[in-house]
């Protein structure tokens, strides 16, 4: 079957799957950035034990594959009385994993802030929370845009692993189409191209944002 006919027939199916990939990736990206900021806050102002706990968390997630938290939440939540849909479980796992990486990225950027600013914040009487929210966070996020972009691209590609817990995103759709039609080549080439477009789009978006906010 030619590619044009293939796309004409199965285009709508791919579109639905594409929407699922985009939604999970977007939700997980937003969640991971928020969670990463929270972890950073705990590390910066949670005292010695707070910093240690965040360190342990980050080390644990950096040294284990993403599939483990995905399986953990998917298999374990029903056992503890939380029968959440697979999409929610998968997104949550991606947030937990990528939040660890995001907090490390943000921590690297904290060092780029001039020490004087912390003294200045204290001398005008800003509370720790206000200092974090008004001074640290905006600068750290802007400094981190390129690295965050890389991480979001990795996250986007990791949404393909959600096919393992039966979410019909792009990869799962390609698998299903292969099983239905026996045409593996067409099914997967289309999906690979869609991923390449998504990844390139994300990279461009982050580059444009980086250029737009280079006021620091």
């Amino acid at each position: 079957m030619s590619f044009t006919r293939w796309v004409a027939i199965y285009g709508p199916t791919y579109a639905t799957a594409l929407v699922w990939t985009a939604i999970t990736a977007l939700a997980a990206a937003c969640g991971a950035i928020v969670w990463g900021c929270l972890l950073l806050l705990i590390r910066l102002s949670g005292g010695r034990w707070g910093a240690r706990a965040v360190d342990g968390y980050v080390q644990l997630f950096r040294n284990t594959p993403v599939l483990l938290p995905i399986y953990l939440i998917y298999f374990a939540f029903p056992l503890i009385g939380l029968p959440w849909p697979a999409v929610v479980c998968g997104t949550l796992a991606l947030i937990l994993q990528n939040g660890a990486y995001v907090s490390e990225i943000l921590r690297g950027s904290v060092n780029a802030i001039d020490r004087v600013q912390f003294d200045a914040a204290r001398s005008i009487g800003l509370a720790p929370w206000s200092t974090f929210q008004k001074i640290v966070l905006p600068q750290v996020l802007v400094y981190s845009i390129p690295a965050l972009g890389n991480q979001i691209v990795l996250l986007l590609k990791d949404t393909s692993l959600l096919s393992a817990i039966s979410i019909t995103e792009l990869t799962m759709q390609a698998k299903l189409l292969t099983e239905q039609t026996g045409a593996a080549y067409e099914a997967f080439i289309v999906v690979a191209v869609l991923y390449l477009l998504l990844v390139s789009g994300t990279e461009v978006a982050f580059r444009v944002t980086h250029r737009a906010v280079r006021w620091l």
Partner: protein
Amino acid sequence: MPAGSLALLTQGAMVSLLLAAGAIAGGTLLAILLAAMAFSRLAAVRVVYRVYVYIVRGTPLLVLALILFYAMPALDLRTGPYIAGTLVLIIYTGALFAEVFRGGVLAIPRPQWESARSLGLPPLAMFRKIVVPLVTRYTLPSYVNVCVMTVKASSVLSIISVWELTLAAREIIERTFAVFTILGLAAAFYFVMCFGIDRLGRRLERHLALRGFAGVRA
């Protein structure tokens, strides 16, 4: 803990480690070739390199694995999941290592090239005496990082039915429902492997550090 699961997980971890070791060895060789292509005089060769890296880094590993797994039998190249799995890991890590090496070559200070040329070093000696020692030291941290990523990435192969640590864990869970124990143990195995590689890398870094040479991280 369900009986016998520790032995199964240990075996799975061994397979994971073997897969990663094969991928790291093969990927490094592939990457040297690719990095050489990145610096080719021929624009067409450089374009091939760029396209390769773009495709491999822009598609999920799972999709690459499934393409190889499903599409290769369609092309009448029948391979078992282990061969297909190792191959896809090599393709994947090859691109990552190649980018690491390329960065390392670009980081070699200009005077090094100039003095090598003025000494009249032949190309092979230049490669052996200047490029290799410097690039090894420049890129070791990123290289180790990619090695750790490879161990973690090997878990993806469980989805194309390569029996390794993650698939072993999944099978035990489906039989016994001991989710927390088994996934906890699997995580511990991965942690030990990844953290171990990281520590080994740091040791090697210290071992290779050249005192007083600017640009080399001590």
